[in-house]
């Protein structure tokens, strides 16, 4: 048996599984997105029409798609930097030699990641209740007018972002913590001897050393945050006035609520293209930054 054939033989099981459970469904979804598969087609396949790029065309002319994309971008643009900043901040605090009870705080800050979104969302809905919520109670104590957190279209997305950041920052925090601990201590020692302030140490040692980790964490977080779904699903059901309807939420409604599988597949592919473009752009910018 020649080496290439042996290699293919070893690859075959993995390829088979990938092809069967990934490639085939993707191709099927692509074909589906070119048809108007819906309830009527489920009843009688003769009711299926081939619409070519009709679903995509229709989506691009639908205000709801653009507003859902806008909400998703809002969530990504505000949520990702905030999430990474909080993760990094928490990691720095935990890594500080001054910190006490590190294992406890590490566990406590990581805990939201392993809790169920649905269970936690119920508690957050209570916290942010307009009349009885703790958040407004605290604001009231400060003399600030109560905010309709989940009911006001302007406030619903910030509340969702807050919830998502709180829920997810622990995961990145652990990654940052590992990266921080891998930075050689003698770098800081040398900087201290040269008289560098803690801020300059952070700027010129910590950040550059964290570079690759930061890039990986950003890409993972961006692609995760683009797939916003569970938070609005359990907190607001996409409302109020569809102000928290994300692209994925739109896909869920199209596909699983209204059974328009054709147009739901089109949404999925558009989201994939957007995420692909954004990730590619991030990689290119990072590479150029690395060369400079």
């Amino acid at each position, binding site marked *: 048996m020649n080496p290439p054939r042996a290699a293919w033989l070893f690859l075959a099981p993995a390829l088979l599984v990938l092809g069967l459970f990934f490639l085939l469904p993707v191709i099927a979804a692509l074909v589906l997105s070119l048809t108007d598969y819906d309830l009527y087609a489920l009843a009688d396949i003769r009711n299926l029409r081939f619409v070519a790029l009709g679903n995509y065309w229709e989506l691009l002319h639908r205000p709801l798609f653009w507003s859902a994309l806008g909400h998703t971008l809002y969530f990504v643009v505000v949520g990702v930097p905030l999430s990474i900043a909080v993760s990094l901040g928490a990691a720095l605090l935990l890594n500080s030699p001054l910190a006490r009870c590190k294992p406890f705080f590490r566990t406590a800050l990581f805990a939201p990641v392993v809790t169920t979104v649905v269970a936690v969302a119920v508690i957050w809905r209570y916290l942010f209740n307009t009349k009885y919520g703790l958040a407004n109670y605290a604001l009231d104590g400060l003399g600030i007018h109560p905010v309709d957190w989940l009911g006001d279209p302007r406030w619903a997305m910030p509340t969702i972002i807050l919830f998502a950041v709180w829920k997810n920052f622990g995961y990145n925090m652990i990654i940052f913590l590992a990266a921080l601990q891998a930075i050689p201590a003698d770098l800081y020692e040398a900087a201290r001897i040269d008289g560098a302030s803690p801020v300059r140490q952070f700027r010129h040692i910590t950040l550059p050393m964290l570079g690759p980790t930061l890039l990986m964490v950003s890409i993972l977080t961006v692609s995760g945050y683009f797939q916003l779904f569970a938070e609005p699903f359990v907190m607001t059901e996409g*409302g109020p006035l569809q102000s928290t309807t994300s692209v994925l939420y739109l896909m869920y409604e199209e596909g699983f609520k209204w059974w328009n599988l054709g147009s739901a597949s089109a949404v999925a592919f558009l989201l994939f293209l957007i995420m692909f473009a954004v990730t590619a752009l991030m990689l290119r910018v990072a590479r150029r930054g690395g060369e400079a």
Partner: protein
Amino acid sequence: MSTRSRQRRPWRVLLHALAWTCAGVAAALSAGCQPADDARTLTFWTVGREGEAVAKLLPDFEREHPGLHVKVQQLPLTAAHQKLLTAIAGGSTPDLTQLGNTWIPELAALDALEPLDARVASSQVVRPDDYFANIWTTNRIGNTLYGVPWYVDTRLLFYRSDLLKQAGFDAPPRDWAQWRRALAALSHPDRGSYGILLPTNEFEQLLVLALQQDEPLLRDGNRYGNFRSAGFKRALAFYVDTFRERQAPAITNVEAGNPWTEFGRGVYAFYLSGPWNIGEFRKRLPAAQQGDWNTAPLPGEHGPGASNAGGSSLVIFRRSAHKEEAWQLIEFLSRPAVQQRFYDLLGDMPPRRSSWEGGALRGDPKARGFREQLERVKPTPPIPEWERIVTEMQLVAAQAVHGDLSIDQAAAEIDRRADLILEKRRWILDHAKPAP
């Protein structure tokens, strides 16, 4: 020779073991399947809490039909629609199911349901003329009957009689003008109290006002939206004005949180809702307050108005192998005495007039409003797209409540969205192939 046989023996043992294991597994499998293959087991899907109550009624049925066993499976409401469609797509439907009557058109379009006309015609128990007429109509698609109503759901007014009396109203309003006056008198938004709670993400409230109008909600054989009709615009204007005049807060049911205690505390004097809330208010309000609330038929534009003909029906699936037994169960659950027990267990109101003539329902003052309303209910258009259209209607109406759209703009926008949703239906109707 001997060495060869000795070599073979382990293989033979293994083969035997394998064969026996296979036989064992097969036997176990067939044993496990036996109850389902047995002609005497019925699978019955229920949606929501009805499953718990029906489980208490079934022992009587099983006693009357020895050897017949009913397996009840409860679906949560949020997953029911998806589960039903998946079951139909996968050919794994139960024998019979509880089905919201607005879903019947959809399942009928999928050709999943068994026509029941012949069975009803020869039935001693199910008598169509005993049912509230328009509730019965919702089970008929075209000329075919697909379901038997099980319980009804219609929306009307819950009101605080003590608050109304304080404001000088001895009786609940009967028409929109009286209703508006009462709302105005009872609303004090600066003190945080409002005339009524109308959650902006629930379509039922606007829908019942729209159903009161003479114009149908869809036109040309349900091919196009008819939301630009003068009647719908009047209903929408009444709805939107309630918010503009701050007689209802523009909040969703997520924020409304616990409307029952709020109603008890006088935050809302009216609450437009359905029968299950009789039980909720009895449970959640203190005993001292039980005399201070009641139900009243929905006010119409000029005198008592219509409301929606909602509720759940019992349907048999076309693929069922036990249609006769399933029909026996439907007949059992349709008996007035059983329906009265069902009401006692759960508070689900029976669809038959004779079921109302006895039991706890007969003298219940809180149920009287519903009894009157049920004679004045109207079905929604019987097409699979209806739920989607009415969802879009509410999204646009919420924008009008928010002040983003005028009444005319909102009506035109709902029509536009409805026409888009109905495009496929028009295509199918226009390309209907003559039966071969």
